[in-house]
């Protein structure tokens, strides 16, 4: 597949539509339904056990157009959270004791109210994590952000699919590796990833293709050794994340003829321990327009929180949502295969 410069949405591709993706996922009749497979564990339906992470998607606007992006984000996307919706998030948060706010996108930093939002969340004394693509931190108009992150003690989590330029650029675009290194060095200068600084800097590995991630601990050791040796870069943890069979990665699977075998692999490697620890059980996901979802993947498939539950941040009810039934689909196998996968890496 050649490099992308615009989202699928910009080209009016059918696969950009959530319904179309769901249709393809549900057509895999030979594979057991995820909900049924989970129930075979004998613990009933998949349900939340609380809310410890309040994940907010600030919009689909991004300076990169990664081939595997589950958001179909890009510079052409205009869906972005308004300050009013951010205020609704703050109001909802203030009535709860949810400890962590996880900011994602797109490139969340490109939301014009990003800086204000981070400061307001910190006033509520919550831990803030930002999923930064790194290159935005060295782009014009955003170079002040590393200092802002350090000032607020924001935890930075960044994708770097490999410690070699070839594999990183293949997935994320030409020149991304080099700019990512520049951003990482800047973060390190401020103390990020440096022991004792208290400033957390974690990396994310996604497979560059239709296969599952390697062992997280072993790959973390490789990243630390190679990035340290070649660039003197330090970071705290590496999270390995399985690519979900949705959006652009689904497109890649279909075009490359890997869809069936990838789904079969995810299903055959269903791990009960990973299934019990899926992140949706302790997360609530807020979309750019304030709609509520069980996770960022359900958000992109437009699968809102289940029947009888609040579906918008205006009606946020922590008590109801913290024991909600989770809406599942065949894509959920992506979180339960092998060692499991979540926004925080493996789950077993």
């Amino acid at each position, binding site marked *: 597949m050649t490099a992308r410069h615009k989202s699928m949405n910009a080209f009016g591709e059918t696969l950009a539509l959530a319904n179309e993706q769901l249709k393809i996922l549900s057509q895999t009749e030979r594979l057991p339904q995820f909900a049924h497979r989970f129930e075979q564990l004998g613990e009933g339906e998949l349900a939340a056990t609380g809310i410890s992470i309040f994940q907010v998607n600030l919009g689909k606007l991004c300076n990169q157009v990664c081939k595997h992006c589950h958001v179909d984000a890009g510079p052409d996307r205009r869906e972005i959270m308004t300050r009013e919706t951010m205020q609704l998030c703050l109001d909802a948060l203030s009535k709860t004791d949810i400890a962590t706010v996880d900011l994602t996108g797109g490139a969340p930093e490109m939301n014009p109210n990003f800086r204000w939002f981070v400061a307001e969340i910190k006033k509520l004394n919550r831990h803030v994590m930002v999923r930064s693509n790194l290159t935005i931190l060295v782009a014009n108009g955003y170079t002040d952000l590393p200092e802002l992150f350090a000032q607020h003690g924001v935890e930075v989590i960044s994708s770097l699919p490999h410690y070699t330029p070839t594999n990183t650029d293949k997935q994320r675009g030409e020149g991304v590796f080099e700019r990512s290194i520049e951003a990482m060095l800047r973060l390190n200068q401020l103390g990020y990833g440096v022991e004792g600084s208290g400033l957390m800097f974690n990396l994310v590995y996604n497979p560059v293709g239709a296969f599952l991630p*390697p062992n997280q601990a072993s790959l973390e050791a490789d990243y630390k050794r190679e990035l340290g040796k070649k660039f003197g870069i330090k970071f705290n943890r590496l999270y390995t994340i399985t690519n979900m069979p949705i959006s652009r990665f689904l497109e890649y699977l279909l075009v490359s003829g890997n869809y069936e075998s990838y789904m079969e692999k995810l299903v055959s490697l269903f791990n009960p321990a990973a299934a019990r620890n899926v992140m949706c059980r302790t997360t609530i996901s807020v979309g750019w327009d304030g709609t509520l979802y069980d996770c960022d993947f359900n958000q992109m498939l437009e699968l809102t929180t289940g029947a009888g539950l609040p579906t918008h941040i205006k009606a946020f009810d922590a008590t109801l949502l913290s024991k909600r039934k989770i809406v599942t689909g065949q894509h959920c196998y992506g979180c339960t295969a092998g060692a499991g996968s979540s926004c925080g890496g493996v789950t077993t």
Partner: protein
Amino acid sequence: METYYNPSDLAKFASMGEGNKPLMDKFFSWYNDVFAEGALSEREKALIALAVAHAVQCPYCIDAYTQGSLEKGATLEQMTEAVHVAAAIRGGASLVHGVQMKNVYHKISM
């Protein structure tokens, strides 16, 4: 049968247990232990398996250990070098037997 090798047959490997399950169970148990982390890492073992797969020219094994090597974090560069090791040993094995050819040559030549 249209072809001797069919990619979907790889997933049927376990069906070799039909006929003698205890033997196959012993094989898989030993096989899994062989590939577990030990004095060699799982990645090193996957790369050795990939090289051997090329030496024995088993298409199932090449398929399985290309995926296996990637899933253990190997790079294309490492995998390519592993295949070269297999090729070098195969080529060297042929060449070194040339010494036998020479032995015979010298024995029967004036």
